[in-house]
């Protein structure tokens, strides 16, 4: 058991290391460098020289990678080009804000998704299923920025319940974000729910048709006990890894949602970093988001270990 957990941890670490190489590699492989990208048309003469010297671009790539990754593993993400500040300072509060947004959405979205998914599976092809599955297709396929814009139009402009865009600074305490965070959180939760409930529904339908569920019925086990004690744990198994993948995929969606609501999170920072062509900052954010993805996968692996006795104990 402990060996298995350690194995998963080692794997997560390995994935992160690979991501480090990739992120660094992509910027190296593409034409230009950090300084030409940042300076754009001004990339010539002394400005370019100064920039390159400051960034140690005259050193060989391997050596720079070693310094950079050593920094990363000590928790130092480097210095921003545009703002000339340690990236750690820029990122810390925004990361906190994004985490609040994502966790909030997950806390509402995942339990709701599981419940609705189970309900749709049990009432397959009947009205509740039609409504839930139909709704999930809409929530899943309409782009986040469209959903967000529509929510703003309805709840912020027409009903005026919530502010349309956030004007709070990124360093403000979390409590000040409260009214602002709700619309982005709802948008994110909707998309997340749609994906997860589809997965839960399909997996639950399979499990409800399996031999052991039929047997449980023939053993006279009450219906709700069959659903939640006998079937759901098995149904969640294939769902969990997909859920983790989906959540990670939705990290991209967070960026857009933050942008639409002007929410002071890591997403808005990322878009700004791209506009500014601030490559060190972009690299750092890519690493952070990849780490979140790896963490999601790790949690999913641990959850399936907890749910699946087959993984825990060999015969």
């Amino acid at each position: 058991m402990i060996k298995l957990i350690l194995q998963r941890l080692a794997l997560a670490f390995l994935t992160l290391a690979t991501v480090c190489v990739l992120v660094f590699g992509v910027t190296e492989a593409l034409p230009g460098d950090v300084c030409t990208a940042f300076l754009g048309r001004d990339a010539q003469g002394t400005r370019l020289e100064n920039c390159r010297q400051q960034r140690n671009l005259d050193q060989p790539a391997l050596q720079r990678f070693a310094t950079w990754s050593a920094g990363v593993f000590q928790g130092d993400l480097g210095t921003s080009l545009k703002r000339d500040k340690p990236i750690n300072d820029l990122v810390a509060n925004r990361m906190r804000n994004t985490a609040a947004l994502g966790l909030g959405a997950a806390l509402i979205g995942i339990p709701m998704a599981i419940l609705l998914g189970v309900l749709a599976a049990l009432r397959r092809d009947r009205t509740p299923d039609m409504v839930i599955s139909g709704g999930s297709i809409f929530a899943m396929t309409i782009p986040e920025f469209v959903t967000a814009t529509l929510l703003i139009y309805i709840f912020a402009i027409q009903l005026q319940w919530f502010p349309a865009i956030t004007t709070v600074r990124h360093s403000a305490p979390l409590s000040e974000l409260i009214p602002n965070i709700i619309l982005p959180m709802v948008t994110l939760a909707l998309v997340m729910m749609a994906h997860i409930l589809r997965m839960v529904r399909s997996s639950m339908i399979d499990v409800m048709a399996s031999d052991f569920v039929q047997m449980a019925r023939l053993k006279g086990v009450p219906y709700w006990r069959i659903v939640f004690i006998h079937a759901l744990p098995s149904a969640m198994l294939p769902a969990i890894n997909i859920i983790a993948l989906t959540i990670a995929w939705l990290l991209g969606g967070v960026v857009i949602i933050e942008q639409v609501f002007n929410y002071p999170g890591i997403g808005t920072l990322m878009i700004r970093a791209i506009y500014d062509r601030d490559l060190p900052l972009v690299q750092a954010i890519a690493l952070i988001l990849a780490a979140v993805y790896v963490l999601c996968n790790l949690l999913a692996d641990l959850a399936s270990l907890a749910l699946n006795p087959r993984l825990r104990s060999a015969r």
Partner: protein
Amino acid sequence: MHNSILHVQDFSLGYRNRAGDLVSVLRHINLEIRQGESIGLVGESGCGKSTLALAMMAFLRGGSEVISGQIDFHGGNLFTLSSAKLASLRGGKVGLIPQNAGQSLTPTMKIEAQLTEALRLHSNVPSKQWRQRAIELLQQVRLPAPEAMLARYPHQLSGGQQQRVAIAMALAGNPELLVLDEPTTGLDVTTQAHILELLRSLRLEMGMTMVFVSHDLGAVARISDRIAVMYAGEIIELGRCADVLRTPAHPYTQSLLRAIPRLDAKGLPPSLAGYPPKVGSVTQGCAFAARCQHATGQCQQDAQLLPHKEQWVRCHHVGQLPASNTVVSHLVPPTKQNADTLLDIRELQISYHKPGFFEQLRNRPAPVATVDDIDLTLKQGQTLALVGESGSGKSTIMKAISGIQTPSQGQIQLQQADLNQPVEKRDRQLKRKVQMIFQNPDASLNPRHTVLEILQQPLRLYFGLNNTECRQRAAELLQLVRLAPHYLDRMPGQLSGGEKQRVAIARCFAGDPELVLCDEVTSALDVSVQAAVLKLLKELQQEKGVTYLFIAHDLAVVKALADEVAVLYQGRLCQVGSVEAVFGGYQHPYTCALLNAVLQPDPDHAPQLCGDDTAEQHPPAQGCAYQRRCTLAEPRCRQATPPWQQVGGNRIRCHLSLDELSSRNGMPMLIDAANF
């Protein structure tokens, strides 16, 4: 007259297909089950026996509906019960023992949780005593170390143990009626015999009424008082077990009993023509008429189930049929003598274990090889059967010969050619000479290919034929396996099981092979179809002079088809010899245990249990492979590998002398079911 406990009255059941038509699965079933009796429902796949059994618990599979009639339990119609009453009935007064216990136990719940759930729902046992009662139940089904068992998950148990847990779970509700849906199918012979004896003794102890569903007449014979034979959704014959088995009256029952290979007969059993009808395809008249040699125009009309001597029979011609012997003269084909050796296996060892990098560093000893020390020769035109329970290494040996598993040591030779090399390194001629037929044609035929495409592949690969030549040759191949040429454009999904297996055989013969590896080729087929496929294989052998290496778990099939037998246990040979010698001469204790466990469709035959049926995970590191289960084991069996002893062509690997073996095997450690 006994009290009736369950009464099936004019019961018909069907489901709607996609086009919305009602397809009937069961037609006008009448059956009364008396208190304390055990009734066997037998028939081939698709005859509706399981559907009927589950209907006795008011369970209909999705989309099914009752067309007519009812089923009464203690006088009350099951289909009008409220869902709460039904839930307390199921698992309570009516218990089910399912076909595949492995898949019927909830995989995420421990045995204890599942047993206490049954106790909580269906017994008056106070919660404090649940654990104690659960242990008692496990003891009742003769599971060793019941306390440890409680803490396990289903996947940690062997097939036999899972089945016992399922029985314990059914017993938790103190059932009056026990429905057993193929409870021993898929288990090894010895395990099957143990489970059947357990069920018999439970019935004697507790006086339960049983409905026993099985395709295996041998199993039914062992446990039933009465038998209902089903065909295409109807009961066609009903009577006392001994009567039906000794003097079957319906032509189907007669031919079915004849088609079963038997240990006490020589050669191949006579086969039935045709295939069982598809579900719902027969709506009018006798369903068996199409395959019946006595059929007349009258058979186009429905027949009634009418009394005939001791039985009830549904046939227009009952009484006018010639008397039937269940055992008739079997086809005994001549075998070639003094042929040359085709396949030679020397000191073969196969290990799945590949030492990893770290293990090599630490210099750990490798685990015991899966298959070890195999010496076999196979003569041209003959059949060698590999016999043994699951995990005995039969398939592994076959994989090594076919070149998809590389042996770790030893030699495999086909005449002068080296078969140790993997299949991709063999030349085209050698590939062609060794062909394989698989157990399940559903899996071995690509579902997206037509029959023509399936047959084309070897023709292209080995002979480089073009399209027209392929079609021509493929049609000939179909003819070889007695299928009409119009099958060429069918998809496997449109064929019956027997037809599919014939296509698989045709594909194998497309390469014009010399050695054919047959992996349980008939075990996925119904009895009536199996006999015909066995006959086909035998005819092809005589026609083409091919050599068969045959794997089967059914010893009667082996006896019918093979010339030589090799008995394997845990990847080691126990005994090798001619069929006559192995089945009738000196026997290794394991051979004896296997043969004693065989069930026969004979009311007088009782299997004998030698030793226990605990499945083993690994062969022992030293000594005799069979030491742990052998009832004759002595200290030397645990230390030294036993020597080969030879009488004529019969080789036995055992420490005991042949005389000791014959005297002690003659009176096996008979474990009486009652005081087991």
